[in-house]
């Protein structure tokens, strides 16, 4: 494979960013290695785990399945670009409030998937929340708290999102 490099001009978190990189360079590699935006994580690198989820043109996308050169003028938003004036977004605050974090590696991807969901529907159903998160894997298996956080943010009444086990009945 030749290592000839091509020039791309990307719009990332509202800023124009220049890139000179070989054609096979993914958006994820550009973000992490060239722009030092390391919030998007490289998990599986073939589209299954969701840890690299960003928004392209306002829709969720896998940064690892997008060639940087093919992004064109479509705006990219990463986990670094969603904070409001308080330093965190509403989705991030909801995850913190519910303790929806274990090792944290998958968290940026979950945040971006929920950011997309809540931007289109501020009061999603339980089913819509689960569908929105269906493409994000948490290898700590900490899904319950993540779903709880999203349900609280959606204003849904607290309910058993999983069948309650014996420990739940002892009060």
């Amino acid at each position, binding site marked *: *494979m*030749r290592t*000839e490099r*091509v020039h791309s001009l990307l719009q990332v978190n509202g800023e124009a960013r220049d890139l000179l990189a*070989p*054609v*096979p360079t*993914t958006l994820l590699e550009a973000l992490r290695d060239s722009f030092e935006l390391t919030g998007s994580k490289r998990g599986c*690198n*073939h*589209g299954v785990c*969701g840890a690299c*989820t960003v928004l*392209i043109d306002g*829709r*969720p*996308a*896998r940064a*690892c*399945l*997008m*060639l940087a*050169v*093919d992004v*064109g003028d479509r705006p990219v938003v990463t986990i670094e670009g969603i904070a409001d004036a308080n330093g965190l977004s509403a989705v991030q605050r909801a995850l913190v409030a519910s303790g929806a974090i274990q090792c944290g590696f998958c968290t940026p991807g979950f945040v971006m*998937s929920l950011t*997309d969901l809540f931007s289109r529907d501020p009061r999603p159903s339980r089913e819509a929340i689960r*569908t*929105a998160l*269906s*493409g*994000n894997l948490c290898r700590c298996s900490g899904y319950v708290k993540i779903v709880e956080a999203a349900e609280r943010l959606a204003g849904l009444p607290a309910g058993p999102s999983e069948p309650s086990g014996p420990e739940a009945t002892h009060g």
Partner: protein
Amino acid sequence: MNYVAPETLEAAYRALQADEAVCLAGGQSLVAMMNLGLAAPKQLVSLRRLAALRGLSEQLDGGLRIGAMTTHAELAGLDPKAAGPALIARTARLVAYPAIRSRGTIGGSVALADPSADYPVALQAADASIEIGGPDGSRRVDARDFFRGLFETALNPGEIVIAVHLPPGPAGAGAAYEKLSLVAGDFAIVSVAAIGRETVDLAVGGCGPTPILLAGVAAETDALLAAGRALAASCNPPGDHRASAAYRRRVLPELIRRAGLAARHGVAP
């Protein structure tokens, strides 16, 4: 590796004449294969600027022409009345995950012809046709003739999938897509598409290198199960990390029953 993003079909056809040139549509399979070291084309021809590959146009008969660069998310958002287009919309909702659906395209999926993919199954059941363009003009190939083998299609080198044409389906017909997978969004272990009313046309995915067509089956439990058992006995499904061949044979009749009855009763899956 070279990259071009032509703005006209003529320029795209010229770019595809280059040695080891391939089309880049949504990239949701090709870039994954490049990342895994399974593909290293010498020239990528991005289709993203080609207006000719975009857009949906409803036909007077209730059918639908789908531009090849239409994403799964766009199709999933449709709610068509006619059974043929409805089958594709329902199928699109079960393709992979939201972040894949927002970028992956029907043209890319059709051209790749993955034996576990969802659209090839639905397109055969719906008797769709594939519009193909090339330097010598365009042609249409029935979906039932288009998928030739494992990742093999009727496309010749240098040709591009331009659009997919969905006929409306029989009057009053319903449609259903039954997909069995390990987790939501994974490739199917077995999937069945059905369209019809008293009799249904079915297509089965995951049980061979290409979808298998079962045309004109009575949409009744006994007939559907019998057709399913006969197919399970005669087909040669793969065994892989998702399921054994025996498991695929075991679940096939029930999935055919569910799809056939759901189509008959017009029930959304």
